[in-house]
């Protein structure tokens, strides 16, 4: 369940030099602006591009090594690849597209596995259609299914949502979430959208100008103030994994628990114990020196200031360690000075329920894991 990639490649004045690894199943975002070299990375991993030099290993098995001239052809690497433009075969029905990789796989899926993947992606009703008769979202789901049915050891997704409008995107996203939660294989998602990262990714690798800048769990990397110029200076945010604790049916609220505190948010579907992922914009977090009284905001979370860094304009960004979870707050420098904030100080973060975005679906139970 691992991928390690060290890639050096030059082309048309661009120099790609990255070194990263993915060490657990789940979804890893390869994040960076357009032209940062993300697609080149996954093309090299998949074998569609032969890098100048480097070493690529999947599950301990080298597939490319420039020192030993090893370059396993793409078709032998068993890496599922979902392209931005889906690339379904126009002359084949959905059903035959799905089976294209499966028929060539040394370990084809069982009928039950096939059914399961088709169900997760919700494409059962499309089987006899031609790709020309599918919507953009349906095409991406079929492309996902086609890649999964070859039972890959790794799944690469090249901005599968970028070409879709918001409506189509929200049609595909829940399927991607279910896939992430049920696939036993690592998924690498190339994206330049921080929103997608916050919603989908467990881990993130930040790529900029051909270099891998940072890698690690999403909540930690997104809350690193030094990386804010790369990870969204305009809208820094914290991502927090939480569990559903209980529902307040009358009030339309749900209480969530996370490492370091509890939060009341607008009602979320899901039984107690279900996992959700929250996104809280730094600008929506107020800081107080003591628990305020007579205030409408219902969430008070105590934390210790771990870092203060000057932000754009009159603002500064503050990283709070809240007993395991990390919370970012963006306040004015003037307020910071007025409160006399400094490293190690204990403060109270005040968060309105309305500013907490639920960013991850609750995965419905499925019979079998995928992959």
């Amino acid at each position: 369940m691992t991928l390690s990639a060290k890639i050096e490649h030059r082309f048309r004045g661009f120099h790609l030099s990255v070194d990263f690894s993915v060490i657990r199943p789940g979804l890893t975002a390869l994040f960076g602006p357009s032209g940062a070299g993300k697609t080149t990375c996954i093309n090299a991993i998949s074998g569609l591009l032969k890098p100048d030099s480097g070493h690529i290993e999947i599950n301990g098995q080298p597939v490319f090594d420039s020192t030993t001239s090893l370059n396993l052809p793409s078709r032998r690497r068993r890496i599922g690849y979902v392209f931005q433009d889906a690339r379904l075969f126009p002359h084949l029905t959905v059903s035959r597209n799905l089976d294209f990789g499966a028929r060539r796989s040394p370990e084809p899926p069982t009928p039950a596995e096939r059914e399961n993947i088709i169900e997760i992606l919700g494409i059962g009703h499309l089987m006899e259609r031609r790709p020309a008769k599918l919507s953009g979202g349906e095409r991406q789901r079929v492309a996902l299914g086609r890649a999964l049915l070859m039972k890959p050891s790794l799944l690469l997704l090249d901005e599968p949502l970028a070409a879709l409008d918001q409506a189509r995107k929200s049609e595909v996203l829940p399927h991607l979430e279910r896939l992430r939660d049920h696939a036993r294989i690592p998924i690498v998602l190339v994206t330049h959208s921080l929103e997608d990262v916050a919603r989908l990714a467990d881990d993130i690798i930040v790529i900029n100008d051909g270099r891998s800048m940072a890698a690690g769990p999403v909540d930690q990397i997104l809350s690193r103030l030094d990386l804010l110029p790369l990870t969204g200076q305009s809208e820094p945010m914290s991502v927090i994994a939480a569990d559903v604790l209980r529902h307040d049916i009358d009030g339309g609220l749900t209480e969530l628990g996370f490492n370091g505190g509890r939060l009341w948010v607008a009602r979320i579907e899901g039984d107690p114990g279900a996992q959700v992922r929250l996104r809280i914009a730094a600008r929506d977090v107020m800081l107080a020196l003591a628990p305020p009284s007579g205030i409408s905001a219902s969430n008070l979370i105590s934390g210790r200031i771990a870092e203060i860094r000057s932000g754009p304009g009159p603002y500064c960004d503050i990283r709070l360690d809240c007993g395991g979870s990390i919370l970012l707050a963006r306040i004015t420098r003037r307020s910071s000075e007025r409160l006399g904030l400094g490293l190690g100080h204990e403060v109270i973060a005040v968060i309105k329920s309305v500013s907490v975005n639920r960013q991850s679906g609750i995965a419905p139970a499925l019979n079998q894991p995928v992959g």
Partner: protein
Amino acid sequence: MWTAFTPAEIEALTLSLRIAVVAVTGALPVAIAVAFLLARGRFPGRAFVDSLVHLPLVLPPVVTGYLLLITFGTRAPLGAWLLETFGFRFAFSWTGAALAAAIITFPFQVRAIRLSIEAIDPGLSQAAETLGAGPMDRFVNITLPLALPGILAGAITAFAASLGEFGAIITFVSNIPGETRTLPLAIYTAIQTPGGEVAAARLTALAIALAVAGLVLSEFAAQRVRRLSGQ
């Protein structure tokens, strides 16, 4: 209706069809291979191959026929060798007419097929590769089916042009009744014969009917193929 035509005329018609069928089907695999190389291949001498393929299009057919004659004539080295080794002869035989027609119409096939291969998204082949398909697998299961409309168009154009080929055939294999006298050659002969105007008119009507039937058939086939290839 067939009673209106003499046996010799019917023979000219069937001979023309046979020569065209053999010329097109014989040249088709070569044309597909050359078109694929020109569309996707990057090799030195590609421009040279490209011009060579198009040569019959710009050369007068008589010149092509003459070149064939000095290559495959029974006294030419290659022709003599074929005759000695295999007992096979192109010169003054209907097979020679088919060879001439194949070479003259080769550029039509290559052009149409090449255009349709170039129109295929190379990304589809990459996708097939990640799904475990080797080069031959991708060619047979992705490129060929998607190029089918172009292959059909090329074959139909080449077939029509083969039916009408005159100069190269008469130069290379002469005008032998029952062997190399195709429809155009029969019309030419009728015109050259005193009192042959009626026969020429009948043969001309036949040629027109053939052309119209060919057009209708090809349109029908093109529609079917487009549907099959999902375009």
